[in-house]
């Protein structure tokens, strides 16, 4: 089913829906950061200082995450990538952005690929952090995504286990009460607030989506940034992307883990800056 259009949302409504933040100079080249599963735009905090002086930096939260408008979240509408990539395009339209470089992490990279297929003329480049076109193994084609359907089921169980903790972390914010300081560190609390029900649905979108079919249609040049030991995307996934994305470059970081912009901000930023310089 096509993504539900959101006709007649005003510019302000789109920006509020996705809690859009714009930093840096208005006349500078545009970087739009797309966050992945598990957190919100705060994921990029450690690499922002490398970019805000020279770029117009746009950050946002996917609907259902962070400071987005939770009332816009419908689990059926947001049950596939289409709506998320449509939101991304609506943000670009609301800010009248063009010649955009998308910096997209994890499932955000899937959204970026879909948006680039839909509106290639808007985007100059894609910078894909710890990306994967499909996290699931595909026995028919021999594609190794790294996870099985059982693994995703196991993840949903882990989400259930954390349901109460997240729900109670959300509660003071929703109710507008003072946060109880003894609950946890304030900094920790202010980052990556998640609604446990959205997490379950977003986990399915993340780990069950498959955009391998889109890759041949991507014409926008891309940089694939992989981590050397990512529990979610084996190195073969980077090779697969690089083989199937025209005009792509593959870089493997020394950094480990799945979120290099948080664990190795300097190395990640340097790779991005080098690519931006070499392609501008």
């Amino acid at each position, binding site marked *: *089913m*096509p993504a*539900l*259009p*959101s*006709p*007649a*949302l*005003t510019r302000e*409504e789109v920006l509020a829906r996705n809690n859009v933040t714009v930093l840096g100079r208005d006349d500078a080249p545009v970087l739009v950061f797309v966050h*992945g*599963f*598990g*957190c919100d735009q*705060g*994921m990029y*905090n*450690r690499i922002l200082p490398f970019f805000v002086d020279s770029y117009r930096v746009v950050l946002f939260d996917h609907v259902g995450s962070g400071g987005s408008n939770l009332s816009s979240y*419908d*689990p*059926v*509408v947001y*049950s596939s990538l289409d709506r998320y990539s449509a939101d991304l395009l609506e943000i670009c339209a609301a800010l009248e952005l063009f010649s955009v470089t998308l910096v997209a992490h994890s499932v955000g990279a899937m959204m970026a690929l879909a948006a680039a297929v839909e509106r290639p003329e808007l985007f100059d480049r894609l910078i894909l952090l710890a990306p994967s076109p499909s996290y699931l193994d595909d026995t028919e084609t021999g594609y190794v995504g790294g*996870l099985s359907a059982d*693994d995703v*089921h*196991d*993840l949903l*169980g*882990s*989400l*259930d*286990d*954390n*349901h*109460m*903790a997240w*729900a109670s972390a959300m509660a003071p914010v929703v109710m507008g009460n003072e946060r109880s300081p003894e609950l*946890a*560190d304030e*900094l*920790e609390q202010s*980052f*990556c607030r*998640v609604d*446990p*029900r959205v997490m*379950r*649905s977003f986990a399915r979108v993340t*780990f069950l989506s498959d955009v391998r079919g889109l890759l041949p249609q991507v014409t926008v040049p891309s940089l694939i940034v992989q981590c050397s*030991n*990512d*529990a*979610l995307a084996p190195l073969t996934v980077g090779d697969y992307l690089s083989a199937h994305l025209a005009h792509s470059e593959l870089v493997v970081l020394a950094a*480990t*883990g*799945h*979120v290099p912009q*948080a*664990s190795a901000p300097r190395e990640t930023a340097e790779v991005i800056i080098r690519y931006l310089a070499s392609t501008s």
Partner: protein
Amino acid sequence: MTEGSRAANGTPLDYESLFRAAPEASVITAADGTILDVNVEFTTWTGLHRAELVGTSFLRLLPVGDRILFSTRSQPLLDLTGRASQVELSILGAGRVPVPATLSVSRVVTDTSLNMFVLGPRRERSVEEAQLISAVHRAEASDTRRQIAETDLQHQSDHDALTGLLNRDGLMKALREIVPHREHVVYWIGLDHFRVINESLGRSTGDEILTTVGRRLREGCTGDAVIARVGGDEFVLTSLGPGYADHADRILRRIAHPLIVDGLEIIISASIGVSTVASVNTDRAHVSVVERLLRTAGTGMHEAKAAGRNRWKHSTAIADDSAINEIRLLGEIRSAIAGDQFRLEYQPQLNLRTGRLHGFEALIRWDHPDRGVIGPAGFIDVAEKTGLISQLGTWACHTAIAQATLGSGVPGAAASQMSVNISARQLSDSHFTGTIESLLEASTLEPGRLTLELTESGVITDGPQARANIQRLDGLGVRLSIDDFGTGHAGFAYLNDFPIDEIKIDRSFVSGVGISADATAIVTSCIELAHALNVSVVAEGVETTEQLMHLTELGCDIVQGFHYSRPLSPEKLTLWLASSSNR
């Protein structure tokens, strides 16, 4: 040794022993998660040995679900804020048996960065928590059912059940989404003498031929082609690219390939109208370009048949004057409002439960000085693009409310409903509810007898103003109806979100009731869905007794259409009311 390493009495503190004997299970890792040390409580609790742990990754201690969640959430939190707490997970203990645990971890920055993990047993899930989580699972299952139902309904309404190709509605939707291109080609394909085949060899043979032709068309096309079956024996194919002559020849050859049905060899042929676009100027002309391409191709198909069949005929669709037409029409609408050229007709609606009059839908008519009577389809779209729709809409509400009391003296009509169409633009106007309120105050019509027909797009726009208007109108007691239900792109979730009293099933579905399995299934689903939500159902465009009988059987509440009555002028309506009250 630093000052902090001594107790208050000056004795050096042995942190390693303190760590090892600490009463909470603890693990120290490097920043990348490599285990550097574990304490006694940890090895005792998990049954693991220190020697086999040191040098391995902490992530290896976690089952796969917890590993994914830790990598995507706890680890970045730790990197960003220096800590992650109250994480519920399991540790794979001796024999890889999961040990439920609650984990907190802090980043300790010394010469290098270290992570200090503290783990404790996890408390049991309380009954309330278990109930909450099971409620979440039930809600998800219900969302999934809703999604499947909507997808099925959408698929049924967009596709031809026989060939699996798009149907006419599906084609129009697909074409609206593509941008007309200078090299866009539309092929309108009509099978030759198909009716004769159907009548002489039977419907099942005919169906098999249609299915085969559908498959052959699909196989002969690239991925970007749109293919639809738009009538009994007619197909439409659109594709990009030059060389339409070769393509049309190939289609003819493919269709003419012999096929065997029940041991009988059948050779069929087709006539094709091919249209290409002369120029594409603006986005504004998009819909009109697509429509002209289709119309030109359809005419071309008939010309090809007339010229002897088994051939194609190319024509060029000229599609660059629609913007000028629009501007001319806008000027005419403006002077028509000033010149009193608009009037309302009223179409009676029958309540199937009581067999009595339910109410009337007010329908706008334009007495155009040159072109005669024009229905709303001829001007509403253009008016909608400008503020004119608000003026027209207010005029229609004012007139309908004033005339609603026409039948008050007639038995059976005293409590009838008056339905008025409201555009998306009116609904998002902040003055709209106030206007309705003052119109009602100035009349004797009770608010509960006024039904406002909203469009799906007007409602799902979900702008704060539209939402506020809907709530306020509901508060006034006005009834709210969704017009052309099922024809838009929207899911049906909004029925739950808004105080909707009624839906109107579009005539395109009603016309197929009892004839097409698809249409019947769609109407049935709409009625069931509406009744489950306590919403009443109006079927529009009911023209035959058969349709009326089927709709009655399906539980439809109200019907409207030529079968009951045409739209009537106020004068004729008075006569109609008088005569029907005497019946």
